[in-house]
């Protein structure tokens, strides 16, 4: 029997982690995502599944604990909000460089700096263009509901292990704090040590046995020719991800003359804006990227052939709009509309922006 509950987005991240057989969570409190660590420490999964939950001394320590656990071939995760995610960038690029799978959750708040504890989507660049140094990519999933907060924990781990690459859930303070009905995932047992060796034994530090060479988790390669070779390997992996893992949703696009492109909570606002616009006779649809890397470039290109103009709606000063423009490549007009610094646009504001910037403009 499926289990339904009314839960906050943050709480469901914790619940989904336990249910998907996560081995360890390492985190540090920060609003608006502290409920993740709070829920975990209240649930005490170590008594139930043996999952490790540890409050680290900092986000820097937490992401490096993730590195240590990931290098053991285990399912490990961390979560934070924008300022804490900035601190994690060093660890994230090391994880990408050592090709270690893990799950990172960012419940974004407004910035820059200490900013505000209110929701924002201003960490898009950091998430998809490489917040740390070097040529690397994260697999970035953008949930638009509490249900997707639940589902993307499992999906994030699945993709992370499939490609041996860190995965990021890019959420925001709205989705994290909002309560919705959610269908909980079935409980999966954690991998046994034997299963870890079977699945990840070719690279994980499980203890060097006589039958194999030593496994080393490292991102160091001092020989630049070999470092370039390794970078080629990474790029080939990202290309494969781009080819195989694009996920997006189209709403009211069949007869659309105009298009919203929006992810996460902005896409929820756009859904209401579609209803309001259509009452006025404006035929507008929504393309919602679910994966931000890989980005649904082709799907946007195809829509650009059909519509008269596109409005990218984000709670930022205009970040994802750059990728929309790259996809559209001048075919039709693309504008950005956003509120930021913790402000959330109303559906009416979005319709007005569509009228002013795209239809009249």
């Amino acid at each position: 029997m499926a289990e339904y509950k009314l839960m906050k987005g943050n709480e469901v991240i914790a619940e989904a982690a336990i249910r998907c057989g996560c081995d360890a969570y390492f985190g540090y409190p920060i609003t608006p995502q502290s409920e993740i660590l709070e829920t975990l420490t209240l649930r005490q999964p170590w008594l139930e599944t043996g999952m490790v939950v540890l409050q680290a001394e900092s986000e820097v320590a937490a992401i490096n604990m993730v590195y240590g656990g990931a290098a053991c071939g285990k399912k490990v995760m961390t979560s934070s909000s924008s300022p804490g995610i900035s601190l994690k960038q060093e660890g994230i690029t090391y994880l990408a460089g050592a090709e270690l799978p893990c799950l990172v959750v960012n419940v974004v708040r407004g910035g820059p700096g200490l900013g505000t504890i209110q929701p924002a989507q201003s960490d898009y660049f950091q998430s998809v263009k490489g917040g740390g140094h070097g040529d690397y990519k994260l697999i970035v999933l953008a949930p638009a509901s509490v249900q997707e907060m639940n589902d993307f924990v499992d999906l994030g781990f699945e993709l992370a292990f499939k490609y041996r690459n860190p995965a990021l859930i890019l959420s925001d303070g709205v989705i994290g704090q909002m309560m919705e009905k959610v269908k909980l995932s079935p409980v999966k047992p954690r991998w046994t040590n034997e299963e870890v060796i079977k699945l990840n034994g070719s690279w994980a530090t499980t203890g060097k046995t006589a039958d194999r060479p030593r496994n080393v988790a490292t991102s160091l390669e001092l020989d630049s020719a070999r470092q370039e070779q390794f970078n080629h390997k990474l790029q080939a992996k990202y290309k494969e991800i781009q080819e195989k893992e694009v996920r997006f949703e189209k709403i009211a696009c069949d007869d659309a003359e105009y298009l919203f492109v929006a992810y996460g909570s902005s896409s929820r606002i756009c859904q209401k804006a579609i209803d309001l616009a259509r009452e006025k006779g404006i035929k507008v649809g929504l393309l919602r990227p679910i994966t931000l890397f890989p980005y649904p470039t082709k799907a946007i290109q195809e829509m650009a052939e059909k519509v008269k103009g596109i409005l990218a709606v984000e709670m930022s000063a205009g970040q994802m709009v750059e990728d929309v423009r790259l996809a559209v490549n001048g075919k039709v007009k693309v504008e950005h509309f956003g509120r930021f610094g913790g402000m959330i646009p109303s559906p009416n504001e979005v319709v007005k922006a569509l009228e002013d910037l795209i239809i009249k403009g």
Partner: protein
Amino acid sequence: MSDIKDIIKDENLVYKKTKVLTDNVMHYCPGCSHGVVHKLVAEVIEEMGIQEKTIGISPVGCSVLAYNYLDIDWQEAAHGRAPALATAVNRLHPEKYVFTYQGDGDLASIGTAEIMHACNRGENIVVIFINNAIYGMTGGQMAPTTLEGMKTATSPYGRDIKLNGHPLIITELIAQLPGTSYVTRQAVHTPAAVRKCKKAIRKAFENIGQKKGTSFVEVVSTCNSGWKLSPVKSNEWMVENMFPVYKPGDLKDE
């Protein structure tokens, strides 16, 4: 003349390289303490029969490539973060022998928070701390442990306490933390010191088996390239100048 092969027989052997040490040529400068300490750790691992159960965490510093020399599974950490990695490995694999191997810049400067909190939590790990009072890898800059008046690439007129503060005697701070059970300061400048240091490393690893919490072995070390002294002179300089500040001996043994 007899062939060397006829001489190398088990009954004639007084010394054998441990098989935990690989045949890779070490990149360390002649006279550097890192190589000796690597050998001691490798010997302890072999003698305790824990090669399959040991996971090493290498730092950023001259020993970043330690994983080329000890034939065990390794994780290479970002600068200063080895104790955080070790924490996770220890929590996820309580049956394993986890150790970090860190320089003074790594442990006592950029990684101060990580080492303090790992020791304070009493992570069941060994910390090998190579204190050579300098940043070896990056070409001899000032370390937190650089002595007063000591010349380095970034203290060319000698470390000025007013400008740079005092040498950080971090091992004494570590010994204050209830999470640590064994805290000792060793050196490897004489055969006798090497034997003593090995005993300390062995005890530290044995403590893991007994779930005693964190064991911390500082090795006061030389960096003859960074110090711009010959290996022999470096040893003399270390005894004369380092030992009064970083006094060898056990700080804690519970």
